[in-house]
């Protein structure tokens, strides 16, 4: 006599994962979207062991290596933008490729896939963010800001600033200052 088996694959997989985690005594939550939230810090080899056990059952932990790499690229860029030493855009590709140990092509591709923007655009965005912070702080002249961020001139800074935000640095400063003044007035009037 042949019987037909119906598999509830979701339930089976969930059960298997639960058993593994319970055996290892791990505190976790299993979300319905195939996501596993582990409520404690797991040492790397522990995670590997868990993954190997699961793989034998046909289940795999996908840790997004790409997202991790993108974060490393962003961190490296922040370091570059924040150091006042010469930041030359043309050398950035070599720098990133060297410290992250991947071809620049691979880094670019992964970065764009995850962030929807390019490494070059992201660098400009971060530089302009710094410029905005300095303008809002109101302590430096535009010339000093341009120099600190390694622009060849105020004109160059203004051009990139305008291309990125649609504002000239002067107009941006005016709006930010007015917003701050309004805030002070609001607080005083309370």
């Amino acid at each position: 006599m042949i019987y037909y088996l119906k598999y509830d694959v979701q339930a089976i997989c969930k059960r298997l994962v639960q058993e593994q985690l319970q055996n290892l005594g791990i505190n976790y939550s299993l979300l319905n979207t195939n996501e596993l939230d582990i409520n404690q810090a797991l040492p790397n080899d522990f995670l590997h062991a868990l993954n190997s056990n699961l793989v034998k059952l046909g289940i795999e932990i996908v840790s997004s290596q790409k997202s991790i790499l993108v974060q490393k690229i962003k961190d490296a860029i922040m370091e570059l933008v924040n150091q006042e030493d010469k930041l030359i855009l043309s050398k950035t590709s070599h720098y990133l490729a060297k410290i992250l140990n991947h071809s620049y092509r691979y880094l670019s591709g992964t970065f764009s896939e995850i962030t929807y923007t390019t490494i070059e655009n992201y660098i400009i965005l971060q530089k302009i963010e710094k410029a905005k912070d300095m303008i809002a702080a109101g302590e430096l002249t535009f010339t000093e800001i341009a120099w600190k961020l390694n622009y060849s001139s105020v004109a160059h800074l203004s051009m990139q600033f305008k291309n990125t935000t649609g504002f000239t640095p002067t107009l941006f400063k005016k709006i930010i200052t007015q917003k701050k003044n309004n805030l002070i007035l609001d607080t005083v009037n309370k």
Partner: protein
Amino acid sequence: MIKNEIIRILLADDDKDDRTDFIEAFETLKIATTVETVKNGIELMKYLNEPSTIIPHLLFLDLNMPKKSGLECLVEIKKIKKLKNLTVVIYSTSSSEKDIDDTFLNGANVYLKKPAHLIVLKKTLLHILTIDWQYHTSGLNRENYLLHL
């Protein structure tokens, strides 16, 4: 473990054709989005204040709406704590300097003049989405988030 999140967009515009064009512009973009629309300021505030509503990432707000204007909505929105990380894009046919200044002073992040052509709209929307996504994922300072297109 983390897929790229779907970007949630809300448009408040009383013009039916503008709403249709807007939705169409998003359909062909490479970035994954969901688009909702409301017809006026009252519907907008009701939607945003509804506890079950998932707050969108971006709100495109027409200035000239009957019953409750875009500017009135903007002022209200900026007072609501749970809408703190909502990016407000003023989407208007106006290019009056006063309108532009007013909207930024009242807390809008982006001022976008409605383009005449769909192709330009698509290109601009992609640009805004890309920049906005950096604000959602890279810890940039929202106090300085001003963009004039």
